[in-house]
């Protein structure tokens, strides 16, 4: 199809035709077009359907405020629902389709809703669908859900990548229209660090859409020349296709730069979009103004547009919205559209102005009256006009430009505490209240509606900002240009109209606002929520004012008395992908790899996520078919001979200073002051509320030097807590802290042959006999012929065991060495599963027991809480609720029938009592199969558990329909006397 409505000129390139498809049909547009302008050029007016009534809809605007012309852009995994045709930069090969329809766009079967519109008024759903109750989920809601929604997601993974970035500037200028350009130029020439951002792919704002000249240049040319100069300045960053989405605290702005949206697919490696966090000292908001419509009967037909949009299509895109166009206005600006169109040879059916004193024209008819109705099923054919004298007149037209005046674009001024104030001369809200700190508003956004006013306002705003920043502002010469005052008569809706659309996307009509008032939903927020006015994807940019005005009239109040709803970020809808950036898939969180990772990978280890760490979970061997086989083997081999496990992930904090011991005395509930050098002690850390926070060991390497370990999960919170205690509570303690978690590769070597294995590694001058290096010993040593190492004789498994640490870069070499020298003992690497089994066998508490609600008493360590010193948590641990009779105690649990499982998370019940919450006796925290005992074992918390050893109870797990009989036993299943670890 040829471009029947294409004109000459404009900022499109006729020499660069672009092919595209809409609803399967092929069209040609031009470089510089939007999808909307290209469709209009091709005579396509019908572009979508409305939300509720499925009314046929065309384009209303030429910008990001568009409520109607929403399409699904692209196909397959890149399908992008609800994309505004007015902001889609046309590219060759573009495909789009209309949405929210059942059947073809011309014959949407759901348009039946429009027939029943009288039943589907505001809030009708709150009053019905309640009977019978069961029908809501089964019948009513599925129908509603299916009918609702706009476009659809492909539900395939988004194949594009998104980046994030951070920028710093003295001045951010939002909007590159006349005010923004003047501000950026002033600040740029003065040497300030400036960012100029505009959502459009072509900067210049309204200068691209108007015909008046600036000095001796067209607006567009002047804009081009200024942008070229700005781009040449090293202190200015010019960012087209960049939407500032929100004004956040302390001068931080979010911005989305569309890098690839105007391409068929992004270039290799390039992101689709970038989310910039912009740190500003000052901001000039020059976001312009948005024209608003007037409500009249059937004002939503394709072809009915904002007058300024028709002008934009003609002047910037060289597209006639139709060959025959009428205008309906309450202000002088509407006439400007008629003049521009007439100059381009388009037939003006008439200009209808509600003002008796409207300007006259020699070129076309100006009528004093109102448009009272329109005709045309899928597109406008006639506008019916009631003249001031009451006579009716039908205007033949395929497009009707409506101008109800302009609203300064105050959106971003409201993101914090700003609340707009009313300006009578403009009949509009202008920025008011407390603006985001550092923000100045200029140009039309500030109510300076003329081009000259905008230029002046922009330059002045920049000058004052520069002065604030201590920079000298250079004055720039502003061109002579249009400086017409605003002439408007407030006019919101045509008397007597009812199905007159305010919010075109959500199908909110004048009638709905009246009903809302009638039913008492009169505050603006109630109006919005009851009718859904302004809740569509355009957030009411073109609709809110009309609704407010009507509510004000009904309530007998002024518009400012009624007030406004709150504009919230983002300024325009923002892809969830760009807000996430690269952090998805495997890159969602960083991975932390242990020093033995490479080696473990070579062994075919299975890895498990422990926080951000990846740890070897078990090491399968050939022939093993289940994880249990591997784990059982690892456990048995370790207890029989020797096993090795990477325990680097445990948090390590270096604590030094003269008061290091005193400091540990504060953070641990048990005593540390008298720990000998060369000894390690188990420590239990409480929160200030008396609940166990973490546990670990502290090794005293010197009088003034400890190495503290934490659990893997709590490394960071514990370090933070220690710094709090040091800096905020005991600032005069001589103690220095630094995390050394990753500085050392640490391996547990456990099992009866662990000493023998170690002998082959430690250098001969280190004596590690039981006498010289007893249980809980620690020392700085050397290994393998001189490598510095730390040795701790501590045991999580309950076996004779050591932990040896070397500088991380040697971790890989050391694990290989251990495996090499351990061959004769059949040294077995074990993973976190075997580690877990052995600690349960030994009855050691871990994360499942230290769950943030357990006390030292619960853990059976009540006596550790020193009464002779004040430590964090000691006082509040004395509260009655934490020391009540019947408290939980950690116990061991084994099945009466050895074949039975004891699942973690099961609850404990008395053997013959009722099974319900009221009779709950406790729960199973950790469970495993013990290959040493040949049956399942578990740890758990049981009321008065310490006095109930030997009792037979039931465990129940109704979640998996499981119950069985168990015996309560000591938590120390293996070597209860601790002989092995002292051997």
């Amino acid at each position, binding site marked *: 199809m040829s471009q029947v409505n294409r004109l000459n000129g404009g900022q499109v390139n006729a020499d660069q035709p672009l092919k595209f498809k809409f609803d399967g049909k092929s069209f040609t547009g031009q470089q510089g077009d939007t999808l909307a302008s290209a469709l209009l050029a091709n005579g396509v007016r019908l572009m979508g359907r409305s*939300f509720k009534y499925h009314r046929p809809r065309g384009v209303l605007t030429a910008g990001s405020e568009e409520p109607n012309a929403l399409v699904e852009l692209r196909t397959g995994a890149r399908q992008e*629902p*609800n994309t505004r045709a007015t902001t889609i930069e046309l590219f060759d090969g573009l495909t789009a389709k209309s949405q929210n329809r059942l059947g073809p766009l011309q014959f949407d079967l759901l348009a039946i809703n429009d027939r029943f519109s*009288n*039943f589907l*008024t505001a809030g009708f759903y*709150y009053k*019905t669908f*309640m*009977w019978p*109750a069961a029908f*809501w*989920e089964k019948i009513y809601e599925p129908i*509603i859900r*299916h009918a*609702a*929604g*706009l*476009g659809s*997601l*492909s*539900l395939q993974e*988004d194949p*594009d990548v*998104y980046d994030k970035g951070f920028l710093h500037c003295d001045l951010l200028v939002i909007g590159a229209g006349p005010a923004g350009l003047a501000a950026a130029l002033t600040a740029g020439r003065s040497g300030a660090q400036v960012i100029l951002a505009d959502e459009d792919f072509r900067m210049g704002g309204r200068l691209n859409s108007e015909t008046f000249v600036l000095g001796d240049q067209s607006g567009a040319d002047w804009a081009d020349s200024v942008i070229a100069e700005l781009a040449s300045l090293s202190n200015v960053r010019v960012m087209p296709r960049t939407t500032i989405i929100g004004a*956040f605290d302390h001068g*931080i702005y979010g911005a989305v730069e569309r890098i690839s949206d105007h391409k068929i697919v992004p270039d290799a490696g390039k992101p689709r979009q970038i*989310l910039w966090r912009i740190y500003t000292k000052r901001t000039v908001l020059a976001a312009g103004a948005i024209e608003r419509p007037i409500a009249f009967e059937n004002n939503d037909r394709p072809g009915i547009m904002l007058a300024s949009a028709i002008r934009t299509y003609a002047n910037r895109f060289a597209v006639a919205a139709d060959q025959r166009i009428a205008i309906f206005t309450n202000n002088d600006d509407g006439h400007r559209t008629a003049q521009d169109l007439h100059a381009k040879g388009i037939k003006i059916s008439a200009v209808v102005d509600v003002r008796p004193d409207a300007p006259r024209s020699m070129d076309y008819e100006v009528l004093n009256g109102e448009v009272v109705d329109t005709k045309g099923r899928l597109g406008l054919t006639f506008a019916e006009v009631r003249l001031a004298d009451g006579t009716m007149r039908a205007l033949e037209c395929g497009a009707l430009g409506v101008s109800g005046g302009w609203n300064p674009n105050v959106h971003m001024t409201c993101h914090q*505490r700003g609340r707009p104030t009313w300006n009578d001369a403009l009949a509009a809200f202008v920025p008011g209240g407390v603006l985001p700190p550092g923000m100045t508003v200029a140009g039309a956004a500030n109510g300076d509606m003329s081009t000259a006013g905008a230029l002046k306002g922009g330059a002045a705003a920049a000058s004052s900002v520069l002065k604030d920043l201590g920079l000298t502002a250079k004055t720039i010469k502003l061109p002579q240009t249009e400086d017409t005052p605003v002439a408007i008569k407030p006019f919101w809706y045509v008397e007597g109209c009812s199905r007159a659309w305010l919010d075109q996307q959500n199908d909110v009509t004048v*009638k709905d606002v009246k009903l809302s008032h*009638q*039913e008492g939903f009169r505050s603006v927020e*109630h109006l919005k*929520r009851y009718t859904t006015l302004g809740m569509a*994807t355009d957030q009411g940019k073109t609709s809110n004012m009309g609704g407010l005005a009507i509510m004000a009239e009904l309530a007998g109040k002024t518009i400012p008395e009624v007030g406004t709803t709150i504009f919230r970020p*983002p300024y325009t809808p923002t*892809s*969830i*992908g760009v*807000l996430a*950036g690269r*952090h*998805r*898939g*495997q890159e*969602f*969180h960083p991975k932390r790899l242990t020093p033995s990772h490479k080696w473990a990978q070579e062994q075919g280890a299975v890895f498990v*996520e*422990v926080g951000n760490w990846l740890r070897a979970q078990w090491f399968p061997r050939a022939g093993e078919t289940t994880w249990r086989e591997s784990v059982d083997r690892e456990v048995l081999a370790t207890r029989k001979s020797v096993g090795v496990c990477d325990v680097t992930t445990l948090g390590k904090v270096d604590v030094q200073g003269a008061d290091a011991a005193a400091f540990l005395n504060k953070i641990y509930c048990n005593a540390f002051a008298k720990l000998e050098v060369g000894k390690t002690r188990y420590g239990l850390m409480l929160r*200030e509320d008396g*609940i166990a926070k973490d546990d670990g060991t502290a090794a005293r390497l010197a009088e003034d030097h400890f190495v503290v370990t934490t659990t893997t999960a709590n490394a960071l919170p514990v370090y933070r807590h220690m710094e709090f205690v040091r800096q905020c509570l005991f600032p005069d303690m001589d103690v220095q802290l630094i995390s050394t978690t990753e500085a050392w590769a640490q391996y547990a070597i456990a099992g009866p042959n662990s000493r023998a294995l170690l002998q082959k590694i430690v250098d001969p001058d280190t004596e590690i006999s039981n006498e010289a290096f007893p249980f809980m010993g620690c020392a700085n040593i050397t290994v393998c012929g001189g490598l510095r190492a730390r040795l701790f004789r501590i045991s999580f498994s309950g076996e004779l065991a050591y932990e040896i640490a070397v500088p991380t870069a040697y971790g890989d070499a050391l694990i290989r060495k251990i495996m090499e020298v351990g061959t004769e003992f059949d040294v077995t690497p074990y993973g976190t599963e075997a580690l877990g089994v052995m600690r349960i066998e030994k009855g050691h508490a871990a994360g499942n027991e230290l*769950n943030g*609600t357990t006390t030292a008493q619960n853990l059976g360590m009540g006596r550790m809480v020193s009464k002779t010193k004040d430590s964090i948590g000691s006082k509040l641990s004395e*509260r009655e*609720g934490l020391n009540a009779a019947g408290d939980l105690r950690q116990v061991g649990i084994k099945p009466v029938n050895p074949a039975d499982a004891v699942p973690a*998370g099961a*609850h404990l019940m008395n053997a013959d009592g009722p099974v319900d919450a009221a009779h709950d006796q406790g729960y199973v*925290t950790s469970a495993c199969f013990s290959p040493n005992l040949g049956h399942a074992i578990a740890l758990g918390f049981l009321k008065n558990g310490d006095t109930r050893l030997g009792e037979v109870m039931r465990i129940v797990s109704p*979640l*998996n329909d499981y119950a069985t009989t168990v015996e309560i036993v000591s938590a120390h299943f293996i070597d209860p006397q601790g002989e092995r670890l002292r051997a």
Partner: protein
Amino acid sequence: MRYSGFKVIKEALMGHKGWTPAWRDPEPQPHYDIVIIGGGGHGLATAYYLAKEFKQKRIAVLEKGWIGGGNVGRNTTIIRSNYLLDGNEPFYEFSLKLWEGLEQDFNYNAMISQRGILNLIHTDAQRDAFTRRGNAMILNGADAEMLTTAQIKKRYPFLNTEDSRFPIKGGLAQHRGGTVRHDAVAWGYARGADSRGVDIIQNCEVTGFKIENGKCLGVETSRGFIGATKVGCAVAGSSSRLMSKANMRLPMESHVLQAFVSEGLKPVMPGVVTFGAGHFYCSQSDKGGLVFGGDIDGYNSYAQRGNLPVVEDVCEGGMAIFPAFGRARMLRMWGGIMDMSMDGSPIIDRTHIDGLYFNGGWCYGGFKATPASGFCFAHLLTHDAPHPTAKAYRFNRFEKGLVIDEKGMGNQPNLH
């Protein structure tokens, strides 16, 4: 006026002339038996149940702005009773049961939609914890089911199970959980209370309490003094501010929680999904918007807005499990002020001042509690004794060490 499909049809045919205001706009009386401060969900529900279930008379609800303007109008609309601890589970299950009959009870379609809530599990330890929780739920009479990854994938085929940083190892589902049209809850309760004679007084800010000899005699308001035999406070995030007027310090901080909605989309999410290895949960409204959120911003705030880092954190979580949402767009972000208590659980209790009662500390979970909170507060106001399901929600639990700490985070509100 009774709402029904029949009434809607009748009015449509009669030109909608018969609809009357959903509630009256009365002038405050000089004295009430019971004054409820706060015209949010909890305050309105309290008034409703006081009038309907506890047959109390002369009740007023005082709202400083417009009713339903607080957290009931700015939450992510989820209802559930998947709690672990005995202090909580019976209460939330009571609430869920009230939700299940609510629409017929107050004759307003709040679109209570029990399409299920699913908590994803990513580690064995998480599975253990969720097993314990699921069992606690069932033992308390609620429903719970442990789903396998395959079962989840059937319901959410676009869930990222192939390339996820933290594997999805199943999920704990509560099929009776779901969502509710939040504004309708406020309006339904308001309409139900109003029709039973409760005065709902908007634009009436409480500026102080009249307390003499340890007894509360009424409240000073922007519309004059209003006497009351009993005063109940249900103002969520403003609790500390309000109670400071009675010289009380609360075990509470006010924090901002952000929430987000996408543009309208054809239905993709059958129920509510919560990511267990990041800060993200999501459902889809009947209108088609993906409604999602994550963690609180984490600092004390009374500004109903948050900042970018949390927005990004939430979207990262979203993209981690639903990478198909990348091309959906966030339409709007907003914030509500959460009354974050010191153990993450609420308080429904008498204060040390005679005649002054308190309801608060709901953290980010107040919406689902609305019916039971209103019911139990009404019970307390009527009988001066706690309702059986709310008996743990006492002020003195902190002093006594009887905290109800679901998450095990201790006395740091921003971690709950």
